[in-house]
């Protein structure tokens, strides 16, 4: 994995090309989410342009994962609009869609606490990702006609190709639960990539990783953006990773957006410093 990806480090130099001119591929307007009396998200706006890596940061409990769950259809938001479209097509609303329909639209996600299918092999995990791009039904499965057989062959080949890309080809027939932690994180990304998304939503991909693994993840994300033409929206606590990776950063606290901008702007933003470190008291 590292061999393949270190050679791709050159792509990092082209990182800062921001295509603001195009219509955003994900646009969220005034998103609010109430849990009973608790307002977890409060009129949040966010947009991701094609080819961008956008980070969503904030202290614990700020509503970042809730935001992801709203977009991916696990929660239905109290109010607000979510629009998404593959690059170059007309925007369509994501409101009221079920999780599987959102994935079919081309938004794939990973989970904060890894949610692989532990008793399936690594390859099968990725094959599940291909599910919504396949068509075989019950009769197809039983009689295994030529089209189903071809589809099966293709899904095995494609899934293997994806595993090669993320550097997990050696583990194909291993049970997912037997993988080392870092590899499990990468497998989750591979599985999400298998759904052919145009936007990848990563929920704390570097959580619990050591320095080396974080470095590899950094390279992998850049590589996905540049070679697979997938834009990325990520939640992350590792500030070093966020600052080096993202084109733009959104900061939320208590469900509200408190800042937005390039990494440099965020670093100096007094609102962000206040949210993370508290206010200075001048006696």
């Amino acid at each position, binding site marked *: 994995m590292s061999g393949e990806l270190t050679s791709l480090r050159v792509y990092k130099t082209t990182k800062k090309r921001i295509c603001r001119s195009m219509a955003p591929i994900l646009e969220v307007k005034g998103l609010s989410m109430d849990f009973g009396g608790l307002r977890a998200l409060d009129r949040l706006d966010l947009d991701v342009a094609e080819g961008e890596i956008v980070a969503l940061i904030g202290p614990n409990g700020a509503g970042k994962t809730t935001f992801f769950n709203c977009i*991916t259809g*696990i929660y239905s938001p109290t109010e607000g609009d979510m629009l998404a479209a593959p690059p170059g097509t007309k925007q369509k609303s994501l409101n009221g869609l*079920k*999780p*599987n329909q959102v*994935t*079919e639209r081309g938004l*794939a*996600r990973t*989970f904060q606490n890894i*949610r*692989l*299918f*532990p*008793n*399936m*092999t690594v*390859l*099968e995990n990725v*094959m*599940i*990702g291909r*599910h*919504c*791009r*396949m068509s*075989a*039904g*019950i009769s*197809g*499965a*039983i009689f*295994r006609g030529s089209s*189903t057989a071809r*589809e*099966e*062959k293709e*899904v*095995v*080949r494609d899934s*293997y*190709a994806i595993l*090669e890309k993320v550097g997990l*080809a050696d583990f*194909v*027939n291993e*049970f997912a639960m037997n993988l080392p932690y870092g590899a499990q994180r990468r497998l989750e990304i591979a*599985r*999400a990539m298998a*759904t052919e998304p145009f936007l990848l939503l990563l929920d704390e991909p570097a959580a619990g990783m050591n320095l080396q693994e974080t470095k590899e993840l950094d390279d992998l994300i850049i590589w996905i953006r540049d070679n697979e033409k997938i834009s990325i929206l990520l939640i992350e606590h590792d500030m070093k990773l966020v600052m080096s990776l993202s084109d733009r950063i959104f900061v939320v606290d208590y469900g509200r957006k408190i800042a937005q901008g390039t990494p440099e702007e965020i670093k100096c933003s007094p609102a962000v410093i206040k949210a993370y470190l508290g206010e200075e008291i001048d006696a």
Partner: protein
Amino acid sequence: MFLTFPIMVIRVNTVEDVIEWRWPNLLFVGLGSFFLSFVWRYFIKKQETGKKKAQAGEIGAIPVSRRLLTEPKIYLPAIIVLSIFTLVFPFIFSLYQTNIMITGLIYVMLGLGLNIVVGLAGLLDLGYVAFYAVGAYSYALLNHHFGLSFWMVLPIGAGMGAFFGIILGFPVLRLRGDYLAIVTLGFGEIIRLILENWNEFSFGPSGIANIPRPSLFGLQLSLQNATIYLYYLMILLVLFTIFVVERLQNSRIGRAWIALREDEVACEAMGIDRRKTKLTAFALGATWAGMAGVIFAAKTTFINPASFTIWESIIILCIVVLGGMGSIVGVILGAFVLILLPEYLRVFSEYRMLVFGGMLVLMMVFRPGGIVSDVRRTYKFAGLQNNQEENL
């Protein structure tokens, strides 16, 4: 020893008002528990060494059960011997034995059907016997009122099973785990109570008698021949079931079921329609129960609601769990163990259920994965380039 003391040793003779002390019994209990504790320790020790080995990373030691299934040198002759044995079985053994075998095979079918719902899709279904009843009553009633033959009703029974599977599936789509189990339990009881109480429809507890056995191209067979015929029919149907389940297991739908079992949230996030997947699992599982029900009615020629109690559901569930969830070979073995063992344990008369229960407990303690645990299909790749081949 002390716990059994009042029961085993002291006996009050109420006629003569004296207490009998049966000391030899105490000795037996003592010796018995002493011996059993040794057996128990031996198994525990064995299990611990196995765990240690696994921790030490000795992957080379593949479990015996799996080696038996993957080594062609071992399993090819085994399959040949087994198939010859099944072919000549009705001719060397008595009619009674053949009948037991047919029952065993019906349970194999039921087990494989429930395996789709419980083993693959992970939906705990305690009312599976309801679909079995639906199949059996489809044949009995359609034959009684319209004179439809076995062969015509077999697909109808399967269809009815699937239909009821979907009917049960709809209300339980949002449920999982314990809640699902309770609802399916209720569903099973509803079907049984309807059959028991709706006299005009199902003839109530007195049941339906004189259901014809399957005919061979319109030929009516004697009892002996009909049983043998049914036996071969069952073998064919079980082979068909195995074929279909095996195909389903390694298909797009089978993988979706397993994903649903493993993690429902992730499964949906990966673009799998949860509703559709659950409904197909319920429907396909129930299809086999419906078919098995038709055969059951044809075999016994008499059915009444007493054959479809919760106990049946539990036995079928035991078959799946004991055999190994998701494993076809496991479920077949489980069915034979659970159905044939009580039959052959009749020698021990009243102790047979005790022995049976004891074995279940021991199995679950020492082999919680079942007799044969599920083996996922592996794929081999020739090279690391794009010319991979699937060698399986």
